[in-house]
């Protein structure tokens, strides 16, 4: 970089994202601003298949992210981050070659393509006559015209201050409050050697409050968040800052009075929405088809068999409007669908990417996802949920003599091969004789996927999706996901307290 010259030339340049439909935005950005033409894409695909690969795809991405953080009543920092690049993937059978370039010049992209191409090593490669791109126009599940990114910094700060005030006003024992607001616009364009050509503009918003409450030596924390693939109308529609400020504070204060959780096997009631974490771990991950293709999941080869209680019908879909797990197209350019995973307890199918779908001779299910251009796609969940049941939640509570009721969670984890999973409640209560009694703390729930799902004995009629706050990690790649669930009773599960 020649900085001397830059300093002499003092023209103001302001960062401006293009506007319009996803396709127009992607075109203006990748073609207009970065000079990547159809001809270039042809050339790069050509280079990608120059060693005899069966298939190649290009994943162009430009991500613009801003964040503001408030701590100790001071707006401590604002940050802007830009990340762009193209990932080139070449498939030969079920083998993957992958390389990426952050430089979108033709030469750099071709270099990445030749690296990815080396997965195939055919001596003779038939000359390709050129690619015909079929420009897809998918449905838009998050049509955001006014993005949070467009909100002036001063207005973001007002919202953040509202949340902070709400938390402090809740109780004088709230000693510290941290509020963060992060918004991202992810512009992607996917182009494949079999002619698929699709663009997507993916907004993502997240606001979070974290509180520390202190009463003498007892210190507890609480947090709450909202978000999703939403725009400014979401922020304007309800007083989210106030709500999450209060909610985070309430959690920390509640925990000041919580008792150590019991331990041992007992009935567990999962409250609606956030408890969907259980599905994500117990059923979701083990039904990602890559594990099944490799035969390493506890559910491998069990399609058509009973793997859960007949009360359980479970879906995964990227089509929930404005949800954190929504996707207009997956990261291989396939459109999302409503994937039935388990129907009345019977395993119906897995979640696929292109490779696993080909392996099973099925259509891809819109679950091929990646963290960014720097990663190749694999089967991942979008929004996973358990369909509504018929029981009144009050009746579910009354059915439990001694057990626990879980409201919110910090996360979970699963061992795909043996099916053991844990999930970690942050707010939970003891249930005694059909009534919620004392708040409890310091517990982990552990179960086994097929066993726990077979113990689902009542399913409520109060289905809800969780707030958009979840991020799923797999093989070092993080992607946003959604979950949902009505109130559920698991008749026996291991509760790990002290």
């Amino acid at each position, binding site marked *: 970089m020649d900085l001397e010259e830059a300093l002499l030339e003092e023209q103001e340049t302001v960062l401006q994202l293009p506007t319009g439909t996803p396709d127009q935005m992607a075109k203006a950005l990748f073609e207009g601003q970065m000079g990547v033409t159809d001809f270039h894409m042809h050339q790069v695909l050509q280079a990608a298949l120059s060693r005899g690969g069966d298939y190649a795809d290009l994943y162009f991405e430009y991500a613009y992210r801003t964040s503001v953080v408030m701590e100790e009543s001071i707006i401590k920092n604002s940050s802007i981050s830009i990340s762009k690049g193209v990932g080139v993937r070449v498939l030969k059978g079920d083998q993957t070659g992958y390389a990426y370039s952050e430089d979108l010049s033709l030469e750099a992209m071709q270099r990445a393509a030749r690296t990815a191409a080396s997965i195939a090593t055919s001596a003779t490669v038939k000359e390709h006559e050129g690619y015909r791109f079929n420009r897809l126009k998918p449905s838009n599940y998050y049509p955001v015209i006014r993005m949070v990114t467009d909100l002036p910094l001063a207005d973001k700060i007002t919202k953040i201050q509202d949340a902070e005030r709400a938390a402090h006003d809740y109780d004088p024992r709230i000693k510290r409050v941290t509020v963060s607001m992060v918004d991202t616009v992810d512009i992607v364009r996917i182009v494949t050697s079999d002619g698929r050509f699709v663009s997507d503009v993916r907004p993502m918003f997240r606001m979070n409050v974290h509180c520390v409450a202190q009463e003498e030596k007892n210190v507890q924390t609480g947090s709450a968040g909202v978000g999703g693939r939403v725009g400014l109308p979401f922020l304007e529609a309800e007083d989210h800052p106030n709500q999450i400020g209060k909610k985070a504070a309430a959690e920390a204060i509640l925990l000041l009075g919580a008792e150590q959780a019991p331990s041992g096997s007992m009935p567990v009631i999962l409250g609606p929405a956030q408890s969907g974490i259980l599905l994500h771990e117990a059923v979701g991950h083990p039904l990602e088809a890559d594990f099944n293709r490799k035969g390493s999941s506890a559910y491998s080869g069990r399609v058509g068999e*009973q793997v859960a209680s007949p009360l359980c019908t479970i879906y995964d879909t990227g089509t929930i409007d404005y949800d954190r797990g929504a996707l207009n197209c997956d990261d291989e350019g396939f459109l999302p669908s409503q994937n039935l995973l388990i129907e009345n307890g019977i395993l119906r199918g897995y979640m696929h990417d292109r490779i696993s779908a080909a392996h099973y001779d099925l259509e891809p299910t819109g679950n091929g996802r990646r963290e960014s251009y720097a990663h190749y796609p694999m089967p991942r969940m979008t929004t996973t949920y358990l369909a509504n049941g018929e029981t009144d939640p009050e009746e579910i509570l009354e059915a439990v003599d001694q057990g626990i009721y879980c409201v919110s969670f910090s996360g979970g984890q699963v061992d795909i091969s043996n099916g053991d999973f844990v999930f970690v409640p942050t707010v939970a209560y003891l249930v005694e004789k059909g009534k919620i009694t004392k708040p409890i703390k*310091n517990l982990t729930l552990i179960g086994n996927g097929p066993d726990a799902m077979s113990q689902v004995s009542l399913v409520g009629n109060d289905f809800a999706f969780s707030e958009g706050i979840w991020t799923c990690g797999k093989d070092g790649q993080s992607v946003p996901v959604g979950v949902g669930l009505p109130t559920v009773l698991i008749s026996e599960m*291991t509760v790990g*307290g002290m």
Partner: protein
Amino acid sequence: MIDQYKQLASNIVEYGKKLGADQVSTSLVNAVSFQVEVRDGKIESLKESGSAGMYVTLCRDQQRSTISSNDLRLETLRPLMRSAMQSLPFMGKDPYYSLPDPQLQGRADVTLEFSDPDFPIHQSEQKVAMAIELEEKTLALESSLRSEQAYYSDLVSHTVHADSNGFLDGYSKTLYSVGISVVTEDKATSGLNIGRKQTDGWFSSARFWEKLEALESIADKACQRTLRKLGAIKPPTCEVPVVFSAEMARSFLASCSSAMMGDHVFRKQSFLMDKLGELVANPQIQLSDQPLLSGMLGSRYFDSEGVIAKPLTLIEDGKLVNYMLSTYAGNKLKMESTGHAGGISNLVLEPGKYTEEELISSVDNGLYLTSMSGQGVNVTTGDYSRGAQGLWIRDGKLAEPVSEFTIASTFQQMLHNLDLIGCEVDTRNPILTPPFRINKMSISGT
């Protein structure tokens, strides 16, 4: 690469000053990596990557803004830095933010070996062959094993840091890894989990090629670790001594170390706040951070703010004697930076005299812990509750495998109950710890 990045870094600092910032700091990182995964003698995936990153913090009049970008071109950096400057007036004034005291900055006066001059040593074909060989060697040990994947990866990274104090320095690091995970059938005898399997593996990782563990040894460990899980049952709910394998000891100490980080302490998010000088652990525990160990994964000359790296005692004879501080955390706590911006270097638990076998034989009835899962670690309160797997210890000997249970205690109790320390240290990551015994934890199972 380093010289080129130094030039760019000092240009960025100059440009920030020109825009009116009174304090500017920047870090530039470049990494080139290779990774191959094989399964059943065939490449599953092969990935090569080269990536760049730039981070800039601009501060004027105690107001601060940061930017990051992987696009290091002038036409991107200029407007980004300007937008950051434009956002400054909206920021609150934070009197604690500052660059480090220039007196504390510099490069430790030692030679640390963390860059292999011969990197990457092998051609792609040889790297692939190595992963395939590891897979063959492992599968040859036991016919019931199937491969999930064997892999080889290497990485070279270049990092440069510069600031308006005049600090400008950089270094390169290399890293090699090779490993395998295998899976085997393990039908549960009751319930719906008739598709149960067990998986495990082993890997080696080092900054120098010749420091990698022999493939035979990796294969052997991967095989043993998987087979010993077969037929796992749920243990009873009880309170027993737990022997932490070196890997689990690492996980425990990683959480402990975050409670010693200044950021957690001044935010009141540490069970160790207000505990300096107090006995917080068993008196035989000696814990320190050692940045100047040659060849170790966490070694460094200076921290991410350019503060010179030096050894720091954290726990001495069970007493908490220091926190790990960045400049900001130091300012908040009215102490000096200890060179821990960016976290620990090599966290060292001083080894004891017992072999792992001796630790196990010290337990009549208890758990040998080999795996933990879940987020049930609360550094603020000290609460600790995790999903676990391992082997039961009966009469001082390893007995049946156990799974689907939790272990629980608090950090406070665990540190005091950590009463026997092993002698064999795992060097595959920056937390250098032997296995140890915690003489009492709650097990929740059947």
